[in-house]
């Protein structure tokens, strides 16, 4: 049993377990001490000094986030001395901060700006001062770093190192010249950054942001020559409502489809179609590997941050990756081949926009391997190398789409529900759960079981692979084979599984990895804030949609079956191989 500690905070008695910080103890009496560098999922840093409090008997103010409670401690969290200190520290931070709030990515959701407002700072006494003048890092297709807006809270560094075990960025230099940089300032794209964007979610200011895609999309929509189709990932519908003031967990699939149609997209499709297709290919790939003694465990390949991670950190394990492209990329390849052919339009005039909860998807769409439609049409249309076009043209985040809807003045909350267009908008319950950790595994099991055994799966919900536990395991009996599976979300958890694979200690046949905590629903492109509670709510919404779907197994998706009959022949066919499967690249650390 843990020892309990009694203390007094602001005159109120508080009883908390030993080892609690003063900051956490204050929350018990409903005091949320203002802070910047503190982050609930990260280690304690104690450097912004905003959360300072007075503790009786201590000569100076103490950081509440880094101070453990002691028996009999008397704490004050709001005195003239504390308010003066907090205000001055924020003033000092603002003195070095660009004053471009109007045009800043974080305009409405900047913690620094909110803090300045909440602390009642109405004038700046250091305004005459010099400000930073650093180059922005535009090297990555996924993220942009603006060191000028960095307040050195280290939240990005900590999330990258602690949650993702990547460590692409760290502090360099000293004192006021301190900067967060990549190795030798090589730029995010040229180091082991996975583009997952968890740093964006962690950043309190606009120092990190996704590459801007909105203007490109408007241009495509406005271009009369372009046939613009849009696909939306499963996790978007479970989160975008938050951007319009709806509570976390609001499932807004119908409103989102309606909004996309109103924005002017020619077809409103669903990445879930791509997800069902992924399951068809991936489940068959797994069965094939098991039958023919292929490389096991097989590991999922839907999460582009995860892919870049394994390419950098475990290049010797690439054979374990499923060769399946992600749903986004399968969708793009099919849209520009099968669907373009069906409609009789030139694939060069088709623009595929994808709305993703993810920033790494921007990187994925730009991978040179992702031009399968071009390869398909090359001979048929006599295309030259300079005509090369990607399968997916533009990737926008959930937040980016929300802004487009706001820019268009659409009253999102009151929109009627509409459906996706056919055929690439038809999907099953197995596809929507791709958005949550464990979902790809569950969807694959639903299909693999029935394909292998030929029997109907009675209990289609695999609760053991659901939820926010770091690593989840399950066993499923497939015609006498005990299929062992594991699921990891967040790259530091993935690393644990990968090290087991590398050391030959992995008992698994199949592993699902998602780069972001909680899976795609916790991706770097999702509404801010994204925290554990909100992740759980979004997962509930996703499983709700699964429950509500009339068809919940990918191999029963009629549009998918038609695609195979009309175009691909069968899973793992040669055509499928060319359009739906990919290869990976060995990358060094820097």
């Amino acid at each position, binding site marked *: 049993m843990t020892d309990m500690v009694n203390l007094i905070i602001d005159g109120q008695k508080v009883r908390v377990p030993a080892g609690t910080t003063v900051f956490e103890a204050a929350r018990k009496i409903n005091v949320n001490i203002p802070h*910047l560098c503190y982050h609930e999922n990260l280690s*304690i840093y*104690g*450097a*912004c*000094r*905003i959360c*300072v409090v007075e503790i009786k008997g201590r000569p*100076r*103010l103490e*950081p509440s986030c*880094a*101070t453990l409670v002691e028996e009999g401690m008397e704490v004050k969290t709001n005195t003239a*001395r504390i308010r*003066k*200190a907090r205000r*001055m*520290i924020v003033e*000092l*931070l603002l*003195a*070095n901060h660009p004053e471009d709030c109007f045009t800043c990515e974080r305009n409405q959701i900047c913690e620094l700006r909110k803090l300045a407002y909440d602390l009642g700072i109405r004038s700046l*006494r*250091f305004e*005459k*001062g*010099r400000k930073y003048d650093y180059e922005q890092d535009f090297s990555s297709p996924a993220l942009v770093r603006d060191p000028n807006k960095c*307040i*050195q809270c280290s939240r990005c560094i900590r999330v990258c190192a602690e949650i993702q075990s990547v460590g692409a960025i760290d*502090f360099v*230099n*000293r*004192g*006021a*010249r*301190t900067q967060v940089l990549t190795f030798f300032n090589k730029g995010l794209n040229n180091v082991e950054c996975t583009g997952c964007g968890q740093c964006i979610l962690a950043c309190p200011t606009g120092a990190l942001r996704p590459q801007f895609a909105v203007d490109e999309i408007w241009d495509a929509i406005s271009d009369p020559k372009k046939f613009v189709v849009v696909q939306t990932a499963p996790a978007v519908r479970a989160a975008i409502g938050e951007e319009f003031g709806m509570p976390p967990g609001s499932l807004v699939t119908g409103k989102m489809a309606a909004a996309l149609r109103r924005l002017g997209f020619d077809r409103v499709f669903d990445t879930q179609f791509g997800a069902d297709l992924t399951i068809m290919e991936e489940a068959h790939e797994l069965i094939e590997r098991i039958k023919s003694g292929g490389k096991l465990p097989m590991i999922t390949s839907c999460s582009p941050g995860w892919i870049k991670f394994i390419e950098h950190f475990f290049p010797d394990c690439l054979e374990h990756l499923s060769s399946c492209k992600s749903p986004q990329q399968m969708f793009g390849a099919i849209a520009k081949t099968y669907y373009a052919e069906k409609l009789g339009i030139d694939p060069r005039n088709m623009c595929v926009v994808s709305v993703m909860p993810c920033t790494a998807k921007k990187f994925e769409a730009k991978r040179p391997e992702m031009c399968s439609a071009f390869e398909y049409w090359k001979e048929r249309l006599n295309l030259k190398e300079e005509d090369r076009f990607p399968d997916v043209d533009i990737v926008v985040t959930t937040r980016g789409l929300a802004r487009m809807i706001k820019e268009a003045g659409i009253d999102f909350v009151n929109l009627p529900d509409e459906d996706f267009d056919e055929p690439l908008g038809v999907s099953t319950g197995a596809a929507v759960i791709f958005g949550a950790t464990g979902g790809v595994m569950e969807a694959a099991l639903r299909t693999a079981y029935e394909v292998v055994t030929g029997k109907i799966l009675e209990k289609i919900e695999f609760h053991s692979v659901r939820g926010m536990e770091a690593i989840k395991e399950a066993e499923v009996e497939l015609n006498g084979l005990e299929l062992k599976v594991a699921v990891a979300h967040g790259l530091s958890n993935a690393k644990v599984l990968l090290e087991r694979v590398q050391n030959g200690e992995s008992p698994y046949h199949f592993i699902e990895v998602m780069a972001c905590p909680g899976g795609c629903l916790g991706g770097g492109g999702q509404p801010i804030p994204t925290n554990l509670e909100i992740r759980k709510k979004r997962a509930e919404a996703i499983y709700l949609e699964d429950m509500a779907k009339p068809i919940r197994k990918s191999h029963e998706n009629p549009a998918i079956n038609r695609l195979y009959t009309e175009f691909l022949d069968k899973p793992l066919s040669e055509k499928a191989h060319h359009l739906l499967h990919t290869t990976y690249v060995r990358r060094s650390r820097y």
Partner: protein
Amino acid sequence: MKILLKHVETEGYSPNLQSYLTEGGYSALKRALKMKPEEIISEVKLSKLVGRGGAAFPTGLKWEFTRKAKESPKYVVCNADEGEPGTFKDRIILEKDPHLILEGMVICGFAIGAEQGFIYIRGEYFEAYKILKNAIEEAEKNNYLGKNILGSNFSFKINLYRGAGAYVCGEETALLDSLEGKKGQSRVKPPFPTFVGLKNKPTVLNNVETFANIPEIILNGGEWFSKIGSPLSPGTKLYCLSGDINKPGVYELPTNITLKELLEKYGGGVQGKLKAVLPGGVSGAILTTENLDVVMDYPSVQKAGGMLGSGAVIVINESHCMVDLAEKCAEFFEYESCGKCAPCREGTKRAREILLNIAQGRGELSDLKLLKELREVMYDTSRCGLGQAALNLTVSAVEKFPDEFEEHISKKKCKLNICPVGDVR
């Protein structure tokens, strides 16, 4: 009365083991190894020795905390990263009597139950590094260090580690981080190093001068030591005299000496007319002619508004402009701030900027109030001593020489023609 420079001031003394042994070196260690560790600690407590690095924490208490800490192994770390401007006292011992430090450290290791010691020496002390390295080798060869020291079953090793020039690494927790191979930045205290120190193990971290006092305390007893100098912080102290003084240098004197005696009797008098004294380098408030009778022990200097710190007594005569002095010192802190905590990183930058503005004739009277408030907040919220003390000197200069600052601001004039007032960069 000499404790620290006893050997150094002996004619023909050289920093090798033979010289040290001739003067009776390592006899304290021999005695200590026959004592119980608790007895050693109680002698050190009895001596009332306080840390000579600047913080003046009771050494015996520090050792006792570490001995009683449950975690193991334990470590002894010697802070030889002497970096406070105006301080050059440890260097004398390091270069001229290195075995004195080693002996103090081994005794400490025996007392607290540590088998490993580290010396973190300032990177720029090339000569001292070589001498110390040689001394460690000599001590190892002759079993004053190593396994089963002098036939006892106590073993102790000392590793020498060089800093890379960061002032903040003289701060104990930044030193520990640097020693661990990390960037030198302070840790959150508590926990203190006595419980969670090097590699998160209980650690005694003492200054060179502190360790150098130990052998004599063991040989003559704590009570003997406690009667030397000022009863408020007994013993002798190494004072570094520099600046506008006729005979600059390191002086070992009992702590009951007054500032006036120090300057006149030992320093040979001030060059020119005395304006101010920094009694402990640039981290403390300045003293003026009003404070000449202050006794140079830790509590007395503090009572006078200053800080004895490492004993870096910098003498300033009437030819210096206080605005210029404050600006130069602020520049030092801006450069040396590690950048981890916001108030220090941003505060040192802005303080220097404000002072530069005043020096260049762009200041406003409200700046003086702002500096004062900045000092309060930096003192209250900075993570370590660097930020907490960075504006002590500046604010005391403003308080004691308000006319000089106001003249720069209101009349855009530097009486001494030192500041580039009106020179807009």
